[in-house]
């Protein structure tokens, strides 16, 4: 038998740890979207006094790398404080798994992003975001890197679907190189708004198509 993954990846893929969902999570992160490819959800239960992650669960609509990375990430994060868990990197996770094929990097990065966004959700909900940075074009661009281009399976920034980003007094304007009647226009728009509208100082998101 010859599989494209390490024993450890296969083991986590076959028997993923901490799968499922927490009914009333203290923090929740969702990365990816079904219209566009892989998707991962991370749920956290955090001790409010110690800020230790007491429980963590994940769900995945993804490939083997995605499932295995999410599984190992939950193992690494459980019992750590949110500050420590934030620092878990994709590199650490993949090293723990004995490596992943380079082409699969983006599938596994999604799992790390899922954990980070669950922690951010916890912090936002519990007033732990101390300094509120104003939203800039760069902030928007980095968030848009999490929106997939379904035609390519890569994000909309890398595939140059985003032609322009403007931010003015809480109003974000995003120009896409895509006609409004395109098969994926609605899915991309929905995904994109979801990533941007939660920013604290954003009041409105305008998505502009080519026609």
């Amino acid at each position: 038998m010859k599989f494209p993954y390490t024993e450890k990846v296969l083991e986590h893929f076959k028997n993923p740890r901490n799968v499922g969902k927490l009914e009333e999570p203290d923090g929740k992160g969702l990365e990816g979207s079904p219209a566009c490819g892989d998707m991962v959800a991370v749920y956290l239960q955090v001790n409010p006094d110690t800020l230790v992650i007491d429980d963590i669960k994940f769900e995945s609509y993804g490939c083997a790398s995605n499932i295995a990375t999410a599984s190992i990430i939950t193992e690494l994060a459980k019992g750590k404080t949110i500050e420590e868990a934030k620092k878990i990197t994709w590199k650490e996770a993949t090293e723990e798994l004995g490596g992943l094929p380079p082409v699969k990097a983006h599938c596994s990065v999604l799992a790390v992003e899922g954990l980070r966004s669950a922690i951010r959700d916890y912090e936002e909900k519990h007033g732990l975001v101390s300094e509120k940075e104003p939203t800039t074009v760069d902030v928007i661009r980095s968030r848009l890197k999490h929106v997939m281009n379904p035609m390519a399976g890569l994000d909309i920034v890398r595939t140059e679907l985003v032609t322009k980003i403007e931010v003015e007094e809480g109003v974000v304007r995003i120009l896409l190189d895509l006609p409004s009647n395109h098969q994926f226009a609605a899915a991309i728009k929905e995904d994109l708004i979801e990533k941007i509208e939660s920013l604290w100082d954003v009041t409105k998101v305008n998505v502009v198509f080519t026609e």
Partner: protein
Amino acid sequence: MFDKMIYLDNSASTRLDEKVMDAMKPYYFDTYAVATSEFGYSMGIEAKEGLEKARETIASSLAASAEEIVFTSGDTESSNMAIKGVIAALKKKKGEHIIVSKIEDFSVLNTAKNLEKKGYNVDYISVDAEGIVDLDELKSKIRDDTALVSIQHANQEIGTLQDLDAIANICKEKDVLFHTDATHSYMRVPIDVSKTPVDMITMSAHTIHGPRGVGALYVRKGTALEKWMDGGFQEANRRAGLENIPGAVGFAKAVELASPEETEFLRSLRDYTIKRIFDEIPHVTLNGNKTQRTPQNANITFHYVEGESMTLHLDMRGFAVSTGSACFSRSLEASHVILGIGGDHERAHGSIRFTFGRYNSKEDVDAIVDAMKEVVTQLRAISPLFNK
């Protein structure tokens, strides 16, 4: 863990038939000379006879004549030869416009894209939700300067069959050459060139338990085709390079071994697979047309789960199948066929292609459907999209 691999990816490649190997062997060990002219030495003359006999077998499978068959290294070469050869021959006489469908295999699609990059005009015809080419669009896109229409007979992923007669007749009426890639239908769905006015047909041995690296192009007598690869004068000066005589002989043997009874057997496996999956696994969609499809292909989307996860679980249990998921492909791009039939990423993401061959059995189908039920249940249990 399991005794043997159950291989259900017969559109990717097939296991060679021992009888094919037996037919090829003498041309490797006894009659291994190159095909010589009738004035050459005897081993070369015998080799040439083997090659020509193989050519006749391929020709008669299409009701064509032997001189209309050119042996190639496979379907990719055949389609390149057809498209590039016609464009080169007709660009001045006819024009620089070609038409292909959106769901062609890469050998046609990327040849067209390459020509487009070089300045030729290409139209990509749409297909409906089941993969059937829009004939009205085809008619409307044919222009005075159209040199060639290239539309596949059967789709490589979803098995949809085009109405070859209708397309060929549209092209004939408009006086445009018509090439079809029949890699996935050859010897499974009959083609008769004495009735269907198709000008060129791509065929390959590897999909019918023949050797890899051998194919053929049917070229109707009188078709304008410029040689696209320079070299010697083989294949009546249409294809340069040493003839692969053992390969051609093996190809012909594979053609002889493919029977209408076998086609019916494959169809029964296909229908049984589809029936069991639809009866026993909820939230599934058949990709392609229910009746206008190749007998060996079942392509099904299992919603809320991802394809590579399914194929890996199946691989660990001893089954080989493929998926249109981006995660499975080398390019990390989702299947252009599923997107072409109006499906979204999700449809491609959870699609599994089962393709049957001579060495499969009803027991294989039962085994994989049983495994599939467990794998899909297991993956849906961890999917954030599945409402448990």
